[in-house]
């Protein structure tokens, strides 16, 4: 028995050590092309890698390395495997997970990408990696007046940080306008219009890093939602009521000095170049009863356009937002139940809804989604394609006795790429729907019985 456990432990140890060994030494990146898009305050980077297995054993996965500051600001990492050539390319999504390596130099963070099938010795595979960074554009100058344009720093490395040897690589950085104050030049680097090209660099060793700083103008709206609480209330009587509480700020260079409304309205292209006053929310197609209000009351500066595939709510806060300014508001709407509630094959019901924030091109620092299940629901569970913090609460609403179960999903650093469907499963016996009318019926019956008792009770003292 002990011998068996010993053999099992040795086999497990051998299996665990093999992936660690093969991923660090045996892979080599033949060609890497990185395109970084700095047009908005959400930094998107596309990496096209051609990975070759130069070892003797098959490699099932590879590691992507990120610097410590980038790891903190990474909102999403996605990887696709490219097969086929030219017109017949097919893209297969790969499993990407954050991981820790024990011997990481300088606190490098890692993501592990698992291949579709293990890469044999001598084989190559083409991958496309997308990663999104938030809060990575640092405004400099930190404070600007109303008439100045917003300039930001972007810190990165001209050489792609990788645990593998990279034979050839090029990095293209796209800026939103042609105004680039300065950029670190690491030969060969040159700029043409809105594009800065770093490379091609040959034969860089693993973990090589060449820090660059690009100082450029970015007047795109830095809309950051500090906190968003979305409450989705399911009513089996026919609708889904969604209430969203926003705390919106402008995350760019802080505004200093006075705000001149005259300058703002007369010289709109120059004054408040980095400010924004209109926001767009993409709502579901068959939406009704949309309201937009805040603590003061209803805000009328909004336009709703309903459509077949989606509805758009274009709304404006009560004032334009400059750097450091905040706006708090509530948006609520109702959608029909049959679009989102389904019955699974095992008899459970599930809600299929879109995660994330309906505002376009905004970062949400802290997102909380609360799914309020009807009274009498049991065994709630949520299925999401990425990790979130899950919790359960109880909410007391109209005609409730025991309260409604609330599934709370919480996630930090949410970008529009997180707007994917998720499901919340629960069991519900349809007979429980009668609990609400039964409560009303018994309330009315109590009134009748009280009047009956009043009529029948004889309070006379004198005998007839």
């Amino acid at each position, binding site marked *: 028995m002990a011998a068996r456990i010993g053999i099992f432990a040795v086999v497990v140890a051998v299996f665990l050590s093999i992936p660690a060994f093969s991923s660090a030494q045996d892979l080599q990146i033949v060609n890497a092309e990185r395109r970084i898009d700095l047009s908005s305050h959400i930094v998107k980077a596309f990496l096209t890698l051609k990975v070759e297995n130069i070892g003797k054993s098959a490699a099932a996965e590879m590691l992507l390395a990120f610097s410590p500051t980038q790891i903190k600001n990474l909102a999403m990492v996605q990887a696709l495997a490219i097969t086929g050539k030219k017109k017949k390319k097919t893209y297969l999504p790969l499993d990407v997970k954050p991981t820790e390596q024990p011997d990481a130099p300088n606190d490098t963070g890692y993501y592990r990408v698992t291949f579709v099938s293990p890469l044999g010795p001598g084989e190559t595979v083409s991958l496309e990696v997308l990663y999104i960074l938030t809060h990575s554009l640092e405004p400099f100058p930190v404070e600007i007046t109303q008439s100045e344009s917003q300039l930001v720093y972007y810190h990165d490395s001209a050489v792609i940080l990788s645990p593998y040897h990279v034979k050839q690589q090029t990095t293209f950085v796209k800026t939103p306008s042609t105004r680039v104050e300065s950029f670190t030049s690491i030969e060969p680097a040159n700029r043409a219009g809105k594009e800065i090209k770093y490379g091609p660099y040959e034969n860089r060793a693993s973990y090589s890093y060449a820090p660059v700083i690009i100082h450029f103008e970015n007047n795109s709206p830095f809309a950051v939602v500090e906190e968003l609480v979305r409450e989705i209330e399911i*009513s089996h009587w026919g609708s889904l009521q969604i209430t969203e509480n926003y705390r919106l700020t402008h995350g760019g260079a802080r505004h200093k000095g006075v705000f001149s409304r005259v300058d703002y309205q007369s010289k709109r292209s120059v004054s408040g170049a980095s400010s924004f006053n209109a926001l767009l929310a993409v709502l579901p197609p068959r939406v009704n009863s949309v309201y937009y209000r805040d603590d003061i009351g209803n805000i009328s500066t909004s336009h709703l356009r309903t459509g077949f595939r989606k509805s758009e709510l274009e709304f404006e806060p009560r004032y334009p937002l400059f750097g450091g300014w905040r706006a708090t508001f509530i948006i609520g709407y109702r959608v029909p139940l049959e*679009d989102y509630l*389904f*019955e699974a094959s095992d008899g459970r019901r599930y809600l299929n809804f879109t995660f994330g924030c309906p505002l376009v091109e905004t970062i949400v620092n802290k997102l909380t989604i609360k799914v309020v299940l009807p009274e009498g629901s049991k065994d709630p569970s949520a299925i999401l394609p990425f990790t979130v913090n899950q919790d359960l609460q109880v909410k007391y609403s*109209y005609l409730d006795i025991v309260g409604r179960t609330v599934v709370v999903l919480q996630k930090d650093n949410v970008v529009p790429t997180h707007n994917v469907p998720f499901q919340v499963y629960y069991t519900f016996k349809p007979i429980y729907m009668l609990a*609400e009318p039964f409560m*009303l*019926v018994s309330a009315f019956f109590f009134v*009748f019985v009280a009047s009956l008792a009043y*009529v029948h009770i004889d309070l006379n003292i004198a005998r007839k």
Partner: protein
Amino acid sequence: MAAKPIASPIPVALYPTLSVFTLAIGLVITAIFFIYETTSSRKNRSLGKELATSAVASVFLGFGSLFLLLASGVYV
């Protein structure tokens, strides 16, 4: 797709009409109940009749108020 959409047991468009009719019937039966109470004397009052009328009236009034709540947007 194997998923079957779940809708309300009663079509949502019917809620306002249903609420008007059930409340009307409920109020008529309530009227019958109170007329019976006031016009009958202590001797020939029948408790069974009273309870039956009040039960039917409270069912109609209960469902009528539920449909009224749903029709006005308070999806309970």
